[in-house]
C-alpha cells in the first residue's frame, strides 16, 4: 500500500472515531433535554403558586419591604451570569457572556458600579483569563441544578442586596440575572432580567383568574412578605438555572449534531480521495509493468 493511501486511511479512521464520540454526545444531550424540560415543568406549579401569593400580598398591603423599594440613588448593581461548566455546546456560553457584557456596559453608563456573580466554569474562565474581578462563583451543577444550588446563590445575593449600598462596599441596589431562556428545542435566547428590586406585578405564566380574594394574613402582611420574597427570588433563580440547563443540553445537542454531520461529510470526501489514490497507484503499477515488459522485449529483440 502506498504512502498516500495509508495517510488517507489513517485520517478516515480518526474522523470515524471522532464521529462516534460526537454522535454519543448528541444522543446523551438529546435524552437530557427531555429530563431538563421535565424538571422545568415540575417546578412550574410551585412558581405559579408563589407568584400568586406574592401578587396577593403586594396588592393588599402597603408594606414597604426593602426587597421591593427602589433606591433613589443606586450606586451598585449585581449581575448574575449563568453559563455552562463544559464546552462542546456551540455558542451557548459565549452568548450568555456577551449578553452580560452588554448589560454591564448599560449599567456602567448609568453610573453604577457592577459586581459580577457567575455560575459555570466557562464564565469563570472567561473572567479569570481577562483578569476581571468576580465577586463570587459557583460551579459544578450547570447541567443539573438543584433547588439547594439556587438557594445558596440567592441567599448570598439577597444578603448583598439588603446591605446598604451607600455605606457598605458589599451592598448592591439592583440585581440582574443573565440566563438562557429555553424557548424550544431549536431556539434558546440569552436574556437579562432585573430581579431586584421586584417589579411588583409580574405575570409569569397564566395570570390568576379573576380578582384575588381578600386575604387574611397570618401573622401579618409584613411578616408573610418577609418570608415570601426570599422564596420568590429563590424560585426565580432556580427557574433561570433550570432553563439554562435545558438550553445548554439543547445547544450541545445541536453542536454535536453538526459535528457528526461534518464528520460524515469528511469521511465521504476522504473516501473519494483514498479511492483515487488507490486507483492512481494501480494505474502506476500497471504502466510500470507494461513499461518494464516493453523494455525487456525490446532489449531481447536487440540481442538476437
Amino acid at each position, binding site marked *: 500500500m502506498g504512502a498516500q493511501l495509508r495517510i488517507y486511511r489513517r485520517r478516515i479512521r480518526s474522523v470515524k472515531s471522532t464521529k462516534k464520540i460526537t454522535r454519543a454526545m448528541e444522543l446523551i444531550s438529546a435524552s437530557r433535554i427531555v429530563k431538563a424540560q421535565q*424538571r422545568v415543568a*415540575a*417546578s412550574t*406549579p*410551585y*412558581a405559579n*403558586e*408563589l407568584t*400568586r*401569593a406574592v401578587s*396577593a*400580598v403586594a396588592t393588599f398591603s402597603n408594606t414597604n419591604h426593602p426587597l421591593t423599594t427602589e433606591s433613589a440613588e443606586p450606586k451598585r448593581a449585581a449581575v448574575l451570569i449563568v453559563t455552562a461548566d463544559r464546552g462542546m455546546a456551540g455558542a451557548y456560553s459565549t452568548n450568555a457572556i456577551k449578553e452580560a457584557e452588554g448589560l454591564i456596559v448599560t449599567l456602567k453608563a448609568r453610573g453604577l458600579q457592577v459586581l459580577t456573580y457567575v455560575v459555570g466554569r466557562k464564565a469563570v474562565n472567561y473572567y479569570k483569563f481577562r483578569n476581571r474581578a468576580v465577586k463570587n462563583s459557583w460551579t459544578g451543577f450547570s447541567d443539573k441544578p*438543584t*433547588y439547594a444550588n*439556587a438557594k445558596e446563590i440567592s441567599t448570598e445575593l439577597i444578603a448583598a442586596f439588603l446591605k446598604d449600598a451607600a455605606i457598605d462596599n458589599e451592598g448592591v441596589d439592583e440585581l440582574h440575572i443573565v440566563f438562557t431562556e429555553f424557548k424550544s428545542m431549536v431556539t434558546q435566547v440569552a436574556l437579562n432580567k432585573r430581579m431586584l428590586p421586584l417589579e411588583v406585578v409580574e405575570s409569569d405564566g397564566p395570570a390568576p383568574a379573576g380578582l*384575588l*380574594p*381578600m*386575604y*387574611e*394574613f*397570618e*401573622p401579618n402582611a409584613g*411578616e*408573610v412578605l418577609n*418570608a*415570601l420574597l426570599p*422564596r420568590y427570588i*429563590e*424560585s426565580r433563580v*432556580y427557574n433561570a438555572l433550570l432553563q439554562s440547563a435545558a438550553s445548554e443540553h439543547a445547544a450541545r445537542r445541536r453542536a454535536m449534531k453538526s459535528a457528526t454531520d461534518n464528520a460524515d461529510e469528511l469521511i465521504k470526501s476522504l473516501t473519494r480521495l483514498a479511492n483515487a489514490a488507490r486507483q492512481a497507484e494501480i494505474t502506476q503499477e500497471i504502466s510500470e509493468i507494461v513499461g518494464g515488459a516493453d523494455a525487456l522485449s525490446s532489449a531481447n529483440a536487440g540481442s538476437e
Partner: protein
Amino acid sequence: MSDSLLTVEFVTPEARVWSGKAKMVSARTLEGDLGILPNHSPLLGALVDGKVTIKGADGANEEFEVHGGFLSVANNRVSILGEAGA
C-alpha cells in the same frame, strides 16, 4: 357535594408532592396550629418547620414534613408551598 371539599395542592420547588380533594388540612404557622376546613376564609400564612396533615376525601391522613413554607387558602383551594417536603 363538591363544595364541601378542599382542593389541595402541596408543591415544593422540585415537584408536586400531593394534589387532590381533602376534608381538612392542618399545619403550623408562625402563630400556632391551624386547621382548615372547607369554606375557610381566604388566608395566607407563613409556616414553620413541622408537620402538615392532609385528611383526604377518603378519610385517610397524609402527613408531610415541611421546612418553612406557605399556606394559601382561597375559595376552597388550598395551596401549600413547602420547601423540601417529604
